[in-house]
Every structure is written in structure tokens, then in C-alpha cells.
């Protein structure tokens, strides 16, 4: 089989793994008893409660997107394009929450402002009861998903052609250049980030459940887990899928294409940072205070609550096995993601796959985890496929479907940085495409591949949405165990477990940072 056919086949396999569960879910909701009927939907939507729930969910996701957008755009400019003191460290701190399940931050906020929390006394006798509601959920979501806006917008800011700004600097002040040239350049990336964030919030279950906010993803999960009403669970999942589809249609109408949003820098020279002058230090303090307010203080409260060593011993005793499983599942998942991502990115680079395939991998990233999980069960829960359904394989398929975009985008950037002549020289020497890929392209792009693997590992490790639905009996992951313990565990043990999760994601994150710093040198 030739190079193009093989790469197309790889993409087709991934697309089947990712899309068949959705189709199976639709079929299950439309044919609960073997005949086509809309009864599940009519029953579900006859209830005013469902409409209210959907409205509240969209409101919460919309409010999070607006707030994170309002904070994220200026913050991205400040951290990526100015000479702000400590901007690299601040950027890493602001990005850190995306690597944690939002339920960790939710627990941190309650640990901080609850009646026994260090700042709980400031709020009077009611303590932080407001956290148990939409307001608390909004704070947690903004802190957790702000990094999506930061990462997309900052990447676009750094990839912009510096000549465009220089041409403007000849006739306009720095603020006019920023507003008239720089920001319009990154608007597509910003819009895409905000819409993606909106979709990601739709799928969150852990934090809303803990904060007692009933959102649609929780409803879908409850229908499945609490009532084991699978038809209703699938019917409840479909509206979320429809909303994500509409969001992506909106992106298409706006003309925003992933390939156009994240491009490699057009010249070797990085754009010149905007000078902040004397206000730089004050802005750095403000940014630091914002991070402390969103994520730093809750994490510090968790640390204080978990201070006793016995809490860590108890946490490891209660969740040690889940830790091990999460590590191994995430490592396997990341390896699959990088393998498929590399082949898909390579296929697109040589023209075997269309640019539109990028939108599909991004779309799957935005599909709420529980929706994908329910789809996976719809497809694989059959006697003939119990080897998949009853084992961690189903979880790995979920990871591959949802997070392949990470492998796709990062390896694409790494492959694009290799001069085409390298591979052409190998071809002239008689090497076939597989040999060229493994002995020329992959060794030259190893830093990008390692970065993609680490990031994919982190996302699989923090995953709650898919794992919550599909984890095989008796083989829960760490995030599922945390979720269970939050309902009835001892506070100091839960806090210690949160700290252990933080340490687990911070270590690979630091490795990523070191790799990045070295590649800059």
C-alpha cells in the first residue's frame, strides 16, 4: 500500500473510532426498543425542567466564555508580547489549572472560603456557601479554562509576522499598533479559543456535581449512572452534541480555520516586545494577584489542609492503585495519541489528507467527555465486544478520540520546522516513506514529539468526563476516585490527594517548560 493510501487509512481508522460512538449513541436514542421512535426525546423535552437545565448550562458556559475572554485577551498580550517582569513564570502559573481536573480547584475554593477555611471567617457565619451555586462554579470554570484563551491567543501573538507591526510602528504609537495591527491579527485564534472553552465547559461534570449545580452534562451522567436509563442518558447527551456542532458551524461561518489560526512564525525573528516602562512592575503585581485570586489561594488552602503527613499516607492508601492505573492508562493513551497524531499531521503535510481534517480532530476535542463516554458504551457494550467494553481498552479509545488533536497539532508544528530538503535527500538516497518518517523526520522532530506525548499524557491523566462514564468495574482512575472521595472522604485526605495530583501534573509540566526553554536557546 502506498504512502497516501496508508495515511488515509490511518485517518479513517481514527475517524471510525471517534465518530462511530456518536452514531451508535444517536441510533440508541432513536431506537430504544428496536423501532425508530422519538419517544425518548419527546418525553425528555416535554419536561420544563430539561429546558431550564439546558438554558442554565448554556448561560453558565456563556458567562464563563465571556469572563475568560475579557480577562484572557489583555492577559495574553501582557504575558506574551510585553516586557512584563516575570512573564514566563506568570504564564506557566496561569496555564497550570488546565492540567488539573476543575474539581480540584472547586475543592480548593471550598477549603479556602468554607467555614473552616483560612478566609472563611471573613465571610461571616454563612461562610462560603455562595460557592455552592452558579457563582462558585463560574469562578472555578474561569480559573480552570482561562488557559485555553491564553494558550491559543499567546501562540497566535508569537507566530504573527513582526514585519506587520514594524510597518505600523513607522507611523503610529505603540498603543495604536497594538489595537490596530496586533490584536486584529490574533482575533481568529481568540474567537476559536473562546468557542472551544464554551464547548469544554459544557462537558464538565466533576466541579458542578461537587458544587451542587445541576448542568446538562451532570443530568446526562445521572440518567446513566444513577438511574441506568441508557436511552434517556443518550437523548440527554444529544443536545450538547448539537450545541458543539452549532458552535463549530459558527466558526466555519466566521471563516476561522484551525490551520490559519496556529501557524509557525513567518520569520525567524520574534516580534519585538511592547515596552511597559514604569508600569511594568505594577502590572506584574496585578497579574500575580489575579492568579492568586483565581488559583493560587485555593491551591494554597488545599496545601494547608493537607499539611499532616498522615493525610498523604491515607490518600495513597485510598487511591494508590488508582494512581498507578491513571499513570499507565495515560501513558498508553498518550503513546496512541502521538502515533495517530503524527501520522495524521504527516498525511496533511504531504497533501494526503485535506485541511478540513484538522477541524474534525478539534471538534472531537470539544465534544463533552460524558457524551463521548456514553457514545463509547452505546457502541461497545455488546456481548461480542466485551473485550473492549469490560477492559481499559474502551478508555484508551476514548482518550484517542478526544485528545488526538494534541498529537496532531504539536507534531504538525514540529514536522513543519524540518526543511523539506531533509526528507527529499533521503528519498533521493532510496529510502521509502516509512523509513524517511522514522529515521529522518521523527528524530529531527523528537522534541515536538516528546512535548506532544507529555501534553497528551497530562490531558489523559486529568480526564474526568470520559473516565467517569466508561471506567471498567474495579479499575477506576485517579480523577474518578477523587470524585468519589469528595462525596464522603475526610477533608484532609481529599486535600492531600489533590496535592498529589497537582504534583503529578506539575512535574511533567516542568519538563515541558525545560524542553521549551532549551529549544529557544
Amino acid at each position, binding site marked *: 500500500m502506498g504512502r497516501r493510501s496508508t495515511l488515509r487509512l490511518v485517518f479513517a481508522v481514527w475517524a471510525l473510532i471517534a465518530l462511530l460512538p456518536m452514531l451508535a449513541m444517536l441510533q440508541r436514542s432513536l431506537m430504544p426498543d428496536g423501532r425508530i421512535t422519538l419517544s425518548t426525546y419527546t418525553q425528555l423535552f416535554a419536561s420544563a425542567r430539561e429546558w431550564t437545565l439546558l438554558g442554565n448550562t448554556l448561560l453558565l458556559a456563556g458567562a464563563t466564555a465571556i469572563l475568560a475572554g475579557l480577562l484572557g485577551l489583555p492577559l495574553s498580550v501582557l504575558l506574551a508580547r510585553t516586557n512584563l517582569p516575570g512573564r514566563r513564570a506568570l504564564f506557566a502559573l496561569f496555564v497550570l489549572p488546565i492540567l488539573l481536573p476543575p474539581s480540584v480547584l472547586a475543592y480548593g475554593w471550598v477549603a479556602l472560603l468554607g467555614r473552616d477555611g483560612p478566609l472563611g471567617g471573613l465571610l461571616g457565619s454563612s461562610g462560603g456557601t455562595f460557592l455552592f451555586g452558579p457563582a462558585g462554579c463560574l469562578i472555578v470554570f474561569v480559573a480552570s479554562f482561562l488557559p485555553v484563551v491564553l494558550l491559543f491567543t499567546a501562540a497566535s501573538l508569537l507566530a504573527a509576522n513582526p*514585519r*506587520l507591526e514594524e510597518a505600523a510602528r513607522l507611523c503610529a504609537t505603540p498603543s495604536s499598533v497594538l489595537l490596530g495591527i496586533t490584536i486584529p491579527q490574533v482575533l481568529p485564534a481568540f474567537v476559536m479559543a473562546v468557542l472551544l472553552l464554551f464547548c469544554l465547559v459544557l462537558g464538565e461534570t466533576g466541579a458542578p456535581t461537587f458544587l451542587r449545580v445541576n448542568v446538562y452534562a451532570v443530568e446526562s451522567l445521572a440518567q446513566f449512572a444513577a438511574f441506568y436509563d441508557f436511552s434517556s442518558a443518550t437523548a440527554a447527551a444529544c443536545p450538547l452534541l448539537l450545541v458543539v456542532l452549532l458552535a463549530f458551524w459558527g466558526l466555519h461561518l466566521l471563516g476561522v480555520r484551525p490551520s490559519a489560526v496556529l501557524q509557525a512564525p513567518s520569520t525567524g525573528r520574534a516580534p519585538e516586545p511592547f515596552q511597559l516602562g514604569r508600569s511594568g512592575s505594577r502590572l506584574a503585581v496585578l497579574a500575580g494577584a489575579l492568579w492568586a485570586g483565581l488559583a493560587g489561594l485555593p491551591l494554597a488552602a488545599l496545601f494547608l489542609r493537607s499539611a499532616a503527613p498522615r493525610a498523604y499516607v491515607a490518600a495513597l492508601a485510598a487511591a494508590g492503585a488508582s494512581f498507578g492505573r491513571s499513570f499507565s492508562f495515560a501513558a498508553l493513551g498518550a503513546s496512541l495519541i502521538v502515533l495517530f497524531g503524527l501520522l495524521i499531521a504527516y498525511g496533511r503535510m504531504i497533501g494526503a489528507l485535506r485541511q478540513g481534517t484538522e477541524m474534525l480532530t478539534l471538534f472531537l476535542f470539544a465534544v463533552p467527555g460524558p457524551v463521548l463516554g456514553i457514545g463509547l458504551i452505546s457502541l461497545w457494550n455488546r456481548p461480542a465486544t466485551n473485550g473492549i467494553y469490560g477492559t481499559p481498552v474502551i478508555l484508551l479509545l476514548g482518550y484517542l478520540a478526544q485528545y488526538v488533536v494534541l498529537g496532531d497539532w504539536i507534531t504538525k508544528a514540529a514536522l513543519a520546522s524540518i526543511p523539506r530538503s531533509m526528507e527529499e535527500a533521503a528519498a533521493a538516497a532510496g529510502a521509502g516513506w516509512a523509513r524517511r518518517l522514522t529515521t529522518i523526520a521523527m528524530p529531527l522532530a523528537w522534541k515536538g514529539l516528546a512535548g506532544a506525548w507529555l501534553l497528551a499524557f497530562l490531558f489523559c491523566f486529568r480526564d474526568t468526563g470520559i473516565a467517569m462514564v466508561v471506567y471498567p468495574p474495579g479499575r477506576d482512575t485517579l480523577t474518578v476516585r477523587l470524585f468519589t472521595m469528595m462525596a464522603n472522604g475526610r477533608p484532609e485526605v481529599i486535600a492531600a490527594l489533590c496535592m498529589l495530583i497537582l504534583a503529578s501534573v506539575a512535574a511533567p509540566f516542568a519538563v515541558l517548560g525545560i524542553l521549551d526553554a532549551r529549544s529557544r536557546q
Partner: protein
Amino acid sequence: MSSLQLEGVAKGYGSRKALDGFSLEVGEGERVALLGPSGCGKTTALRLLAGFEAPDAGRVLVGGSVVAERGRIVVPAERRGIGMVFQDLALWPHMTVRGNLEFGLRAQGVPSQERERRIHQMLARVELLEYADTNPGSLSGGQQQRVALARALVLRPRALLMDEPLSNLDEELNLKLRAEILQLQAEFGFALLYVTHDREEAFALADRIVLVARGRTILEGDPAG
């Protein structure tokens, strides 16, 4: 009086010295070509004059006034009255042709009616009036070159810096645009500092050629002589 002047300028990037005690003078209305191989410091000289960077040592003067010296920018780029055409043209892709011309006029506080008049006049001059509301990305290479020229000249700069703007064009278009640049220079009277590694281009466009290598002037003279 000199329009543009570099006095004993040094500029380095890490351990690499781009310019090393480099001096240059361009008189009012004069056409000077900086000729030299890639990496010899030609573009760095333009960037110092434009105001994008400050010299590590030496002085930069525009219109007889010091605008940068020894690691310090005294007059920022937007107040030097210099236009520039970049190698990749750097046309703003999110603006129309008109928007590209209008941005600078607006930033300089030119009143609306005057803006319209100058844009119309300039686009008519470079024969792009019918493309005023077009996105520059959809224009041909030659038309994009003319937009870049018009964008720089609509601000009536005292000097125009050109960084190998014709290097990516085919020979026929290259010759046509050289003639156009000479016509515009004669018409508007700006000083022209033209960077190129193409000897023929330098001879065709300049009154004076400065040969640069390793950040220093090697030879200087009149192409006719």
C-alpha cells in the same frame, strides 16, 4: 543637510557583530544603494534608521537631529518621518488597500477629508484606484508592491527605506517596478536608501552605491563613474 546619517555605528546580536563602526550619509533627495551579500549588516542599518532598534555604539541622525545613540532610542520610529518597504511587503492582511493607506494617516491625526484626498491621489498615482476596497492578499505580486509603495509614500516621508523589495519578482516585473520607483522618487523628492544584493539593481536605481561586507563599508562611489 543629510537626510539620514549613521555615525560610527556598531550593532551586535549575541556574539555576532552585524555592524562594526559603520558610517553612512544620505543627502536630501539622494538615491543610495547598500550593496552586499546576505548577513553583511545592510538590513540592520535600515532597522537602526527606521527606529526599530538602537545602536550599541555610535549615533543615528535623521534630518540633522540625533534620533538614537549608544543603546538609547531618542526619537521613536513613528516620529522620524521615514517610510519603509519591507522585503515581504508586510501588507496588513486584515485591512483593504484603502485601510492599509489610511492607518498611518489616521495615526498621524490627518483630518478625514484630507485623508480621503491623499489616499485617492496616491492610489490614482500608482494605478490602483479600482482596487481600493480589495484585500491586498488577492492582488498580484506587482500590485502588492505598488500598495506597499503607496502606503509608505502617502505619509509624505522625508526618506524611504527599501529592503530588497523586488527580490521575489520575475525579471520583467522587476524592471517595470524599478522604473516606477525612479519616477516616484523624482516626483516626490524623498531620499532613497535601497538595500539589495543584486548589483544590476543597485546600478539601475542609485546615484551612489555603498558596498558593505562584515558590517563595514568596503567601497563607495558613483555608479556612472
